[in-house]
């Protein structure tokens, strides 16, 4: 038996096993007591988090079949995924009860999805990457539709599933073409083949582009983003929050891994494409967000826009000189975005009514008066999304733009700054509604949501005073290069 494989995947496997058990155990937990399932799920995530952290001293290594890898990059992302999973549980518990959809399957599926993400971070082989992608996506297709009697939720699930299957086809086709060109599916093997063996460039690039497109769908980069607003709006809000943060992070994790470990020699071909994707995503995401009336839809477009910023970090991926900056700024921004995003979605969840009302911008009017702490937290998140100093979002963008400029992509950084400026319009509009419009919003009594929101806001502000700590952490979590 391949013992390295087990060592590397131990937290992932443990989480998967726990999820299976949870699925069974939940069958005997009565509907009124689904809180037990939530606690069990959280315990599983926490245990996996402990296992992951205990692996921190593990040397960077791959197993003998070059299927999986363990390095700082993967561990860093594992922590991010597991923490997002915990937030996903905290977001959901009260919401599910309120929406009368307290199904235990939610937690098991969430755990499966997190396991898929962790597998994604560790995957070192295109086949395994595809498997991980499916493992993370399929539970989410179901989760989007878990609010079943509601048409929007079903529509959202169907759309997500159809387009997701469509994009999976691209990933698979890309993998096949790359295999056809290089006769390898493991990332270091592809890298080596590109350097030594004769490789058909047309077939290889075609494969690489198709793979890229498939993953661009997952991170909702323009023009492969069309599903995002509809799915995010229709899915139950905690699921949306989890998707917007964790799925995006997983997509970028694997995108960064593939680009930097396997494709650095074809930067000449891929960089312009990434450049265009990043620029388009930033522009379209931010522009479309302006006219949105629903906060959920606005945040959906905002998540598209942030995918653009994250893509910007990857544009100079083939430049070995800035490689560590690329990774560090990518990971840093993922953390900043995750904290901000989870917090913002927690606030949105707290304001949503049982029948799905409370999601319009007008519903936030007067929040500053009636719930000053919640409004303050939301203010922090909006400022962080915009990238205003004294928030983590500022440093995230700062490092991102610095990476782009150091990589020689000044124009892209300028587009980033300009679109950030545009984004201030719709983010600050939320503040305007909260503080300058009169209204009496009703907030559901949901202690865990409030805890999540306030903790995230505190983290966003406090870590912004010591950004170096997080940046060093991200910078030291380098991915193993072949």
């Amino acid at each position, binding site marked *: 038996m391949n013992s390295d494989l087990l060592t590397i995947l131990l937290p992932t496997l443990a989480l998967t096993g726990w999820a299976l058990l949870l699925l069974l155990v939940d069958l005997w937990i009565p509907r009124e007591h689904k809180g037990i399932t939530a606690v069990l799920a959280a315990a599983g995530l926490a245990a996996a988090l402990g296992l992951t952290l205990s692996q921190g001293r593990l040397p960077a290594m791959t197993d003998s079949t070059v299927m999986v890898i363990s390095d700082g990059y993967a561990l860093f992302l594992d922590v991010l995924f597991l923490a997002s999973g915990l937030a996903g549980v905290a977001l959901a518990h009260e919401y599910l009860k309120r929406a009368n959809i307290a199904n235990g399957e939610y937690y098991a599926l969430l755990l499966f999805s997190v396991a898929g993400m962790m597998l994604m971070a560790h995957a070192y082989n295109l086949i395994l990457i595809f498997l991980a992608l499916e493992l993370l996506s399929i539970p989410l297709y179901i989760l989007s539709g878990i609010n079943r009697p509601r048409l929007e939720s079903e529509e959202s699930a*169907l*759309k997500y599933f*159809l*387009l997701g299957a*469509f*994009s999976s086809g*691209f990933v698979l086709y890309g993998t096949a073409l790359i295999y056809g060109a290089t006769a390898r599916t493991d990332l270091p093997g592809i890298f080596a083949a590109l350097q030594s063996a004769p490789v058909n460039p047309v077939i290889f*690039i*075609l494969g690489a*582009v*198709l793979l890229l*497109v498939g993953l661009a*769908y997952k991170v909702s980069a*323009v*023009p*492969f983003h*069309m*599903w995002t*607003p*509809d799915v995010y709006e229709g899915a139950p809000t905690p699921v949306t929050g989890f998707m917007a943060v964790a799925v995006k992070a997983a997509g970028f994790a694997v995108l960064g891994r593939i680009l930097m470990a396997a494709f650095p020699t074809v930067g000449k*071909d891929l960089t*312009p*494409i990434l450049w*265009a994707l990043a620029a388009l995503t930033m522009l*379209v995401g931010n*522009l*479309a*967000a*302006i*006219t*949105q009336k629903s906060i959920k839809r606005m945040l959906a477009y905002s998540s598209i826009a942030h995918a653009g910023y994250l893509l910007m970090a990857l544009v100079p991926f083939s430049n070995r000189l800035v490689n560590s900056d690329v990774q560090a700024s990518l990971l840093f921004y993922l953390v900043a975005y995750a904290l901000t995003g989870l917090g913002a979605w927690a606030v949105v969840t707290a304001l949503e009514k049982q029948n799905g009302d409370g999601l319009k911008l007008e519903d936030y009017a007067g929040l500053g008066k009636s719930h000053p702490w919640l409004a303050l937290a939301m203010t922090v998140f909006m400022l962080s999304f915009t990238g205003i100093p004294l928030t983590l979002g500022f440093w995230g963008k700062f490092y991102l733009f610095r990476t782009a400029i150091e990589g020689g992509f000044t124009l892209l950084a300028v587009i980033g700054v300009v679109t950030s400026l*545009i984004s201030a*319009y719709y983010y600050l509009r939320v503040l305007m509604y909260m503080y300058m419009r009169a209204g009496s919003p009703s907030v559901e009594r949901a202690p865990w949501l409030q805890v999540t929101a306030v903790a995230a806001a505190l983290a966003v502000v406090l870590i912004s005073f010591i950004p170096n700590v997080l940046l060093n952490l991200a910078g030291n979590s380098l991915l193993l290069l072949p």
Partner: protein
Amino acid sequence: MLLSEVSLHDPVFRLAPLVIFLPLAGVILNLLIGRRLGELGAGLIACLAGAGAFAVSAALAFGLKSSPEGAIVLIWRWFQVGNLDLNWSLKVDTLSVTMMLVVSGVGTLIHIYATRYMHSDVRHHHEPGRYTRFFVFFNLFLAAMMVLVSADNFLMLFVGWEGVGLCSYLLIGFWFEGGEGGLGNARAAKKAFVVNRIGDFGLLIAIFIMLGAFGSLEFSRVFAAAPAVTATAPGVVLAITLFMLLGVTGKSAQLPLFVWLPDAMAGPTPVSALIHAATMVTAGVYLVARSQPLFVQAPLAADVVLWVGAITALFAGTIAVGQYDIKKVLAYSTISQLGFMVAAVGMGAVVAGMFHLITHAFFKALLFLAAGSVILALEEADHGHDLQDAQDMRVMGGLRSRLPVTFWTFLIGALALSGLVPLAGFFSKDEILVAAQQKSPAVFIILLAAAFLTAFYMARQVFLVFFGRPRSGAAEHARENPPLITVPLIALALLSIFGGVLNLPGVHTLEHWLEHSLNVTPAKFVLWIALVSLAVLAAAVTLAWLLYGRKPRATAREADPLAARLGGLYRALEARWKVDEFYSWLVVRPFERAAEFLSSIFDLKLINGLGDGLGALVQSLSTAASRIQNGFVRSYTLVFLVGVTAILAYLLLR
């Protein structure tokens, strides 16, 4: 508190941060509970904060006696960017502790005085609630000033520099709704702030150049590297020092940026005494003294400093002669005396400059407080409210017998300022004159002329205020103020009398004290110069007596006796050489016109139009972007395919 030491020879140096934190504690306490404590409590807190800072400074001074090389006390690591490593740490050496002693010592006396003065002042302005606010600002000023003098790097010094500027602004505009047309005081505060900003800009540029050239802002590193940098790039240090000079002219009210200080008299009198006479305005002198190693490397800049100081000393002296406002005379006198100090540090006589800084802090604070006492007495006696301006010397007169303590202390201050042997001012001014005589005869003559004017306008002031007959009902009924006012006066008068002991010829206590921090050239005592300066004093007082003392002004409306004799010249003095009008014509008016153009035509029409247009464009783009979002999976797939096709087409056609 995070306290770790870099080099602490004496545990007493650990106390150093308290000089900042005690006043700061006063600020916080008074902010939180001052209003509830009432006047007594708030005043007590403020005074205790000042006295505590003074006690700590004294303890530090004793510590320095045994280990005079001093210490650097780290409070916390501020930030680290690249190679730049900035700490928030205090430099405890003889120079900084000297400044601390002056600031906290004189400051505490003025605090005590202010507890009584502000009691009347807030009632005079019908705003008793503002009593606490005054002491919050006052303590904040002390804290900021302590930051300034205790900084061990230029950035921290700049923080203090801006801090005192802020407090100055707040306190000048303390009665912001008062003054001419209800805007006068606010305008004065704004003017002080804006003019200081010009100087601060210079200092900031100096710091930037320093950062570029030296890669550090710490005093010790910059000064150690100065000779090497001068050897390779002589222009750099020259640029740094010249820009620094711009900062000095702003903060220490030298030509050409002195115009804000006379207007700053709009603040309550204790403010004028503490901030605009004794401490803050001497920050520029301190900066030059502290940066001595830099000025040594740039003799040209040192010469410019010298000439700026000397010319200012004379120029401001002339204006003081033509003023009627009791505080304005003192303000111009302050500018003139600051000119002496700046000239002294410019010519390398740093000890003389610092000496004059200290003695001047004593007697100018005394003069302002005594003037405040006069104003207070007049305001309190002005029952019929027929007094237009309680600061106008023309409505005073004959106060000698009515305010005896104030009179005697004022007289001592005036004589000390004029340089009568053996009062404090005599020794410090004499040292500067000796140094000037050795440096250049022209500067010596200018400073001597300024000294003549000093004695003349001070004598004129004494005669106008205290002699002759009262020229208004208020002056007639004025009565001496209570001890809270007069005791600080007496204390400061004693300091003005005996302040010269600090650096007596032959003993040179201050010189030996400061030689641990500065490069001192031993001062000499030259008998003929002392005699000449005394003769000048005698001549000036005699002239003043002839003009103002022999036949005192009888009514408030009479013209000044000098006006008839000097004609147009006197009118020019009275109008302060129209410097304000000149600046207004040169800078303010064009600026306002440009601003008017930019705001009404450029901004409203062009920029706003552009902004609205862009906004509309973005809105329509946004609408277009969300229109594609029609909800059909088939069109989403289509967009997806179009994207793939576009990428493939790009790869094919590239």
